[in-house]
Each structure stands twice: as C-alpha cells, then as structure tokens.
C-alpha cells in the first residue's frame, strides 16, 4: 500500500513488466488464521473472494494452515475445502501454538518460496497485520492493506486492490506489477461469507517448519482472555441499532439500547460518541471501528460520513432516522425517516414490541 497515494506518475511505467522469473508464480492463496483451536471467520470470507479471483485467472485456490497438530488443524483443513480451497498447505509444529511473529513468518516465507503463489491474502486482524507486514518485507513484495474490493486487471493479470485512503474520504486502487506474490489484507466482515460445500475435499501438502525453540527470541508468558464476555458482538449481529451525535445528550443513548433490547439486537454508535465517552470503544461502527454486515441496520442521528459508511454499508437493509432530509446517510440507506430520533426511537420500540406480541399470539 502506498503511504502517499497520489496520481500515478509517469515514471511508474518502468517497473510495470513482470520479470521472467516471476511468471512461474501461480495460484491464489489464503492464510487460514487458526488460533486457540479456532479459525477466524475472516479466513472463510477471504476464501470466498479468492475463489472468484482464481476463477477469473483460471488457477487454483489454496489454503495455508499453520498450527500445532491436534489443535484444530484437521478441522481447519477440512473446512478450508468446504469454503472453496482446491488444495491445502499444512505445517504442523508445536512452535506454532501461540502466535509469534518469527515462526509464522518463517513458515509462510518458506512455503511461498517453495510453491510460489501469485496472490496471497490474509485477514486484517491483529495477527494478520503483524504477519503480513513482516512477510512482505521478507519477500520484498507489495502489500495492500485493508482492501475493500479485489479484482483482476484485465490487461496485466495483476490484482487490482481497492482500499480507502486519506482517512476514508477517498478510495484508491493499487497494483503490484513487478513483484510476486501480490499480498493483500482484508478486514473482517468486509467480504461476505461464502456458503460452505461440505462435499468438497482435496489434496493436503505437508511441509515442515525448519526452526527450533532456541531460534525464537520472543516468549509467550501468558494469554489473558478478555474478561468482559459482554464484549459487543457487532460484527456478527443480525440486527444493529446505532446512535450518533443527533442523540444530543448522553442519557438518550438509552433510547438506542431500548430498541436494541426489543429487537434482540446489538447497539453501536458513530465515533464522536466514543470520544465523548457515551459508549465503549468496542461499539464504534466504521472505518476505525467495527465493520458490520447485519440483516438490518437502524441508524439514528448519524450523518453518514464516509468513515461511518464504509463500516456499515454492507448491511442488507439500512433504515436511517435524521432531522436533516439532506443528510448524506440518506444517500446509502434504503429507508429513511425525516424526524427527531428522540421521538422516533421510542415509538419504534413500541411499534416493534406490539408487532412481536401479535406474532407470538399468532404462534
């Protein structure tokens, strides 16, 4: 990713040709993020995307599973096929038990150098970003972070990776023309989850990790799981209700919570409410918060700034409530109510409560 994106200067043309020795790089890889025995769902979202890219390129999709034997690796391999992989590269080693930069970078670097993929995708999680940055430097290749759209450029066969830039106010498309693999990270929930096909299976290629514990300087002393099990599950909620500065006073956050309660929904907010301390940071929706993909998103008193939009427009349906008929949120919401959120929210809570009571009586 370019640190200073700008108009493409003419000089870029120089390094546009893919050197001969890199033409052997083929196939699309997805790093399957397995931690504490569980696969991060972003990996499956990426496999869905990889499938489309590979079909365009007429190549295969491979999943890469790293972890200690017996801790979810078998399951991860099987599921990688279900979600679209044609083959899986597997490195099992006790050194891959808790994530550490060095052994993971080593395992993946060796795999890439041996099997030469043209595209390598990772989730833009804390693990994925730590690993991707180290790996791209080791491989001296291009990395585009936090992509929101991936496509293949017709003329160059290159990965055209689109991402927000300038704090999200603009988008830019980035290509790596003269280095391989082309690396990209994508944030969780930006891509949709593919339907698994449980009948799919394929070959597993096993490799070894050429490293011993003494080679690794960093030690994991402890893992402290988040105590707060009430952490907002915004990213996976079916329904999300959120409020913005239009709520006007901290106590009005309750109106959002009330509606969420009746809908069995998660609640969230725009960034200024976090800054004011009206909600906790895990509830921020948007580019620097959570990306949501609910079935229904209700946004009250939120103007719809681009940074908020990129984190919420993946919702199937958006209802926006705003006093200003020209608020930008009405440009991407499906339904709108021009009105005072402080009146509409409690009325909606009542209307849904009534409707659900009727449904329940009807069985």
């Amino acid at each position, binding site marked *: 990713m370019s640190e200073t994106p700008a108009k493409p200067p003419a000089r870029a043309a120089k390094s546009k040709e893919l050197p001969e020795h890199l033409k052997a790089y083929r196939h699309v890889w997805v790093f399957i993020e397995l931690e504490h025995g569980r696969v991060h769902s972003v990996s499956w979202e990426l496999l869905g995307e990889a499938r489309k890219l590979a079909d365009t390129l007429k190549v295969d999709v491979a999943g890469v599973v790293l972890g200690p034997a017996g801790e979810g690796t078998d399951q991860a391999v099987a599921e990688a096929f279900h979600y679209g992989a044609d083959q899986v590269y597997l490195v099992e080693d006790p050194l891959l038990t808790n994530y550490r930069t060095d052994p993971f970078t080593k395992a993946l670097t060796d795999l890439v150098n041996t099997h030469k993929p043209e595209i390598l995708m990772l989730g833009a999680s804390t693990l994925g970003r730590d690993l991707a940055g180290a790996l791209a430097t080791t491989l001296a290749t291009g990395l585009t972070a936090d992509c929101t759209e991936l496509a293949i450029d017709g003329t160059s066969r290159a990965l055209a990776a689109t991402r927000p830039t300038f704090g999200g106010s603009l988008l830019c498309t980035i290509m790596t023309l003269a280095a391989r693999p082309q690396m990209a990270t994508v944030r969780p929930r930006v891509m949709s989850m593919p339907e698994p096909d449980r009948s799919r299976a394929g070959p597993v290629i096993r490799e070894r990790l050429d490293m011993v514990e003494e080679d690794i300087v960093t030690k994991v002393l402890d893992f402290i799981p988040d105590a707060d099990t009430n952490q907002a599950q915004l990213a996976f909620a079916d329904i999300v209700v959120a409020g913005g500065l239009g709520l006007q006073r901290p106590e009005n956050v309750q109106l959002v919570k009330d509606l969420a309660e009746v809908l*069995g929904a998660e609640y969230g907010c725009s960034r200024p409410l976090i800054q004011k301390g009206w909600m906790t940071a895990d509830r921020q929706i948007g580019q620097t918060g959570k990306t949501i993909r609910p079935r229904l998103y209700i946004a009250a008193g939120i103007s719809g700034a681009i940074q908020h939009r990129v984190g919420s427009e993946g919702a199937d349906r958006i209802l926006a409530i705003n006093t200003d008929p020209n608020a930008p949120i009405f440009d991407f919401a499906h339904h709108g*109510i021009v009105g005072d959120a402080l009146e509409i929210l409690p009325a909606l809570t009542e209307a849904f409560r009534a409707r659900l009571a009727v449904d329940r009586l009807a069985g």
Partner: protein
Amino acid sequence: MSQGLTMVVCIKQVPDSAQIRVHPVTNTIMRQGVPTIINPYDLFALEQALALRDQLGGTVTVLTMGPQMAETSLRKAMGHGADRAILLTDRFFAGSDTLATSFALSAAIGKINAETPVDVVFTGKQTIDGDTAQVGPGIARRMGLNQLTYVSAIPAIDKAAGEITAHRRAEGGVQVLKTKLPCLVTMLEGTNELRRGSLPDVLRAERAEITTWNAKDAGIEDVTKCGLKGSPTKVSKVFAPKPRSERAAMIEGADATPAAIAAAAVETLVAADPALPGVITRPSALA
C-alpha cells in the same frame, strides 16, 4: 549501562483527512490549504517513550520521513518533550509505499544506532492516511528488531538484562510477551494520554535545530530502493466513492405523529424482509 534507554519514535505528518476533497471534474485530490497534523496514532507511541524516559532515563528522538514542511510536526513533538528531532527528506523518497518507507526509516535508525545503540523503536499502530499498519513490522524485519505490535502496556523493561515484557492485544485477549532488546513496538491507541509540553520544552522546540538528513546522509547508497522506484505497489487510480444509485425511500405515517411513522416503518421493514420477525429470537425481545 545506566545511561537509560535510547528510543526512537517514528512519526508521520498527515493531512487532516476530514478536509480532503476530490475535484469533481478533474478527479484529482485537492490538497491545497488542507491543514496537517501529527498522525494521531503516533501520539500514543510518543507518550509511551516519554513515560519510559521518566521512569528509566534516556533519550527520545523523533524521526520522520517527509517533505521539508514535516518539520512542523517534529517541532510539535519536541514541544511535548522529545529530546531530538530528525527529518529525513529527499526527492528520492517521493512516492514511497510501505516497503520503501520502512527501507528509508531503517537506514536512518541504523545511523542513529551507530552513534548510540538504540534500545526501542516506536511507531503508532497505523497512519490515518496510509492506514496500513505495515511500516512498523517492516522496520523490525529489516533491522532484525524483535517485533511487538498492538502493545497496550509495557509492564517491565530491564536494560541491563536487555529484556522487555509487553502486553499485546490479540484476538479475544491479551498476550503477555517477553523478548530481548532492541525491539520495535507499535502502540495501540487509547493506551495513554499525551502530556502537555512544559513551557521550557515548548520554547526549546521553537528554537531547536532540526537535524535534516537526505538519502546520502542516512547512509543510503542504493536510491532505487527508495520512493517510487523502490515501491512494488503502484497507485493506479484515486477516486471518490460512488453514491448509491437510489436514495433512501422515505417512510411517512398515516399522520405525522411518531407512533404513526413508527408503525409504518415496522410494516415497511417486515414487508421488505418477511423473515425479519423470526430473526428476533432473544427471549427478552418477547417479554
């Protein structure tokens, strides 16, 4: 061994992104007059370094790669208490992507290291304009520093033993990591609050000599690894997001009362997605 810690904080001057626009006709970025700020994420790195200096002594050098005007941000950082500022500036650096940026910064840190061995290099978690979170790891790899990303706290650091313990934000919890110095730390946001500079610091910052290095000064022989030439990624286009083709369909009630509008909204939503009531499964929803 008791001279305290030698720390380098990498910062970036960025446009205040809320104010950037694309020219509607030419589709080019209109940067003129857009104010610049220190990348907000870097402030957490700066404060962490200053706090460690309070605790153990040592020096904090702020380093930035950018145009001459990035001096403003370096002075600001000094005003908050940094001891020294270095501006890495050269036309060869223009158009750097993450790989080329980490190359140039590593060269400069290498030069600082030759004067006094560096113990910790800090960066912010990411920038608001590039937003890649990749420069920190890039520096760590190039310089062979132990990499600690998304750090929320540094409970222990022992220069004599050459060890550091850090809390690293991970999925679903915090990893407690112990590694050796020198290391690279990217700080998580919200972990501290940047101090106000003291009056003497602010005055010193105004008058301070900012060390300016070009590629050669930083010891870079091969300028093809810098800037556009050294950047494997190429920006092929920059554009404004497209509006959705249809604007929101406005819901109006039988009359203008909130109750009527809300009733109409529920009807509309359920008509559009008949399975919606079935999604609402939490028992409390039915109470």
